[in-house]
């Protein structure tokens, strides 16, 4: 029975290693950021299972300590990465929003200034033309 158990555990180890490789390929391809975070978490979980199977097969009890450490570290990685990326995205959007708000305020100020100038009428245009002709003569 022990030989059967050993061979079955070896086959399961090979299958899990191939699944980890597929996960890594998906982490490289995946178009969005969330894809990569999910795949890194999954790879950590599969490596945890591999370590636990090795601990039972070689009858060394202290390898299970490493499993708990892997669980903590991968959970912590997901928490910190999600928080940082949400902050970066919201900051970018806020920067663009404030820039657009400034442009809106300037556009409305320009519109109100143009409307007051057109109310003044021809005097403004004539004075402007006069000054422009003087400056052109000076330049020549």
């Amino acid at each position, binding site marked *: *029975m022990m030989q059967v*158990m050993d061979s*079955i555990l070896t086959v*399961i180890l090979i*299958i*899990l290693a191939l*699944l980890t490789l*597929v*996960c890594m390929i*998906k982490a490289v391809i995946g178009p*969005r*950021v*969330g*894809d990569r*975070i*999910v*795949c890194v*978490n*999954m790879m950590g*979980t*599969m490596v*945890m*299972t591999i370590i*636990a*199977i090795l*601990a*039972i097969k070689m009858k060394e*009890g202290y390898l*299970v*300590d490493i*499993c*708990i450490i892997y*669980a*903590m570290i991968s*959970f912590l990685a*997901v*928490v910190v990465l*999600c928080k940082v*990326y*949400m902050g970066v*995205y*919201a900051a970018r959007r806020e920067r663009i929003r404030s820039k657009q708000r400034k442009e809106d305020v300037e556009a409305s100020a320009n519109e109100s200034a143009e409307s007051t100038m057109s109310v003044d009428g021809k005097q403004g245009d004539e004075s402007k033309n006069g000054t422009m002709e003087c400056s052109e003569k000076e330049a020549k």
Partner: protein
Amino acid sequence: MEMWTNIRIGLGLLVLIIGILFFLLEIIGIIKYKFLLNRMHAAGMGDTMGICLSLFGLMIINGLDFTTAKLFMVILFLWFASPTASHLISRLEAATDEELGRHVRIDIEKEELEK
């Protein structure tokens, strides 16, 4: 006594193989779906159930020992931590995806989503 040990090992191997099947289904789910929220759902459920059943099978194979108690502690830790990771990733997706309206039917107000 030999027979009881063999039955115990056989039962443990069966539970372990069911756990590995969950991992296979999870990988199929990740490759197959088109949207990120579907893939995250497959990954979260497959992860938790797969590792908990696998470690439970290993506990049955090992018998009563200090190693078994440590494996039980790993199961308890992952039972709490893995679904929280899924919650955080879905929150990230809801906050940064611009085309969320095309993928998911949303029944709440627009202002509450953009907070």
